[in-house]
């Protein structure tokens, strides 16, 4: 465990993330131009989606439906148990509790990528089609969280928002559209297509991920000063809840028939909190919620925790469960 932990902390991806944090903390001038951020995001989502799609044609849909159902169920369940904890444990306003619960049930693609990176680095195999789990796990929690929030706001339901807009945002936000689209393209191309794009989408992947995490370190670091505004409860929540969800996720993954690496990835997905898709959808559907609370805990607490300690922890737990 300690060896794996050290290997993770000393990986290029995590070290570049740390460098970004430092850059933000010392108020360095270092700044990525916004179009570069967007370009890196598109590259990473397309690369992982395409790879997953190719793997799906090789594995067949029969192998993926049960883990996918498990991921959807897990995503929908997480806001249901975290909402009461936030509401009564944290004494948060109902709409804030629902918003945060939605963020924690939804997933972070970058955390997932970092976990696959970790598995590759330690030489552990995993189902490449597990990226389909990332795709299906993004939306269920958002929808559950929004329903919880709308119920809590009472019969008037707060500011009225057209239901169609919410569903469109939850299901067809930018990231999920790209990821699902690349999955389909990869599935249609199969291994022959993969050979054509491998030098571009596979070989440079780790370098691009490192660069992206440098930017994410800056983004997270610039929000560290908001930590004072979220309070000690959410700080603790941002670490303890991912651990519980991650351990649960590995259990569910094992029960759904995933391999050790795949079960660990489902654990990481369950532990991760969304900071792109969920904020957009929640901002639209529950404008009464305070976005600083959910975004700061997801981005400045849970994301760095998972990246550094969570990933090796869930891997160790998976290793314990599977043997």
């Amino acid at each position: 465990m300690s060896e794996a932990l050290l290997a993770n902390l000393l990986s290029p991806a995590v070290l570049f993330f740390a460098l970004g944090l430092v850059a933000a903390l010392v108020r360095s001038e270092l700044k990525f131009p916004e179009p570069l951020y967007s370009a890196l995001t598109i590259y990473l989502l397309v690369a992982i989606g395409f790879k997953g799609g190719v793997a799906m044609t090789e594995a067949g849909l029969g192998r993926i439906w049960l883990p996918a159902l498990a991921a959807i169920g897990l995503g929908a369940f997480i806001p249901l148990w975290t909402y009461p904890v936030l509401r009564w444990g944290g004494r948060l306003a109902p709409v804030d509790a629902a918003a945060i619960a939605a963020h924690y049930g939804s997933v972070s693609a970058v955390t997932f990528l970092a976990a696959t990176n970790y598995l590759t680095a330690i030489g552990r195999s995993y189902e490449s089609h597990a990226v389909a789990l990332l795709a299906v796990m993004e939306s269920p929690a958002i929808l559950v969280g929004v329903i919880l929030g709308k119920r809590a706001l009472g019969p008037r339901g707060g500011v009225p928002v057209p239901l169609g807009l919410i569903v469109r945002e939850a299901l067809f936000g930018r990231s999920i559209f790209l990821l699902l689209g690349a999955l389909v393209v990869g599935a249609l191309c199969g291994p022959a297509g993969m050979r054509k794009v491998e030098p571009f989408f596979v070989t440079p992947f780790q370098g691009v991920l490192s660069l992206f995490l440098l930017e994410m370190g800056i983004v997270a670091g610039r929000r560290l000063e908001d930590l004072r505004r979220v309070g000690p409860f959410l700080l603790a929540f941002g670490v303890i809840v991912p651990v519980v969800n991650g351990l649960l996720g590995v259990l569910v993954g094992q029960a759904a028939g995933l391999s050790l690496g795949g079960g660990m990835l489902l654990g990481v997905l369950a532990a991760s909190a969304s900071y792109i898709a969920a904020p957009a959808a929640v901002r639209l559907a529950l404008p009464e919620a305070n976005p600083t609370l959910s975004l700061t805990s997801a981005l400045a607490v849970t994301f760095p925790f998972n990246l550094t300690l969570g990933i090796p922890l869930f891997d160790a737990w998976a290793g314990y469960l599977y043997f």
Partner: protein
Amino acid sequence: MNLHPMKLVTIVCEAYAAEPVLRLLGEVGAAGHTAFPVEGSGARGRRLADIPEYANTQIEVICRPEVAAVLLERLAGELFPRYGMVAYESDVRVLRPGKF
């Protein structure tokens, strides 16, 4: 030079609000707009523009005074409660009033 009075309505809003604002512009009959990403700070703290989804958008539209009045009223009634935004109008003079 013959200049004609018009109103310039400026809306600075979180990026999530840009789409509903643009829809509203169409509904009140404001023809044309300019939108650009901005960053800054306001009454509710900093708005960092490092990630497009978290950024702010500034939308400017030139329109006739009666359109500006309806636009501001509907912004205040429909979108202010939902999104972080400020909106204000100012007097401008244009060369070709038929365009607006």
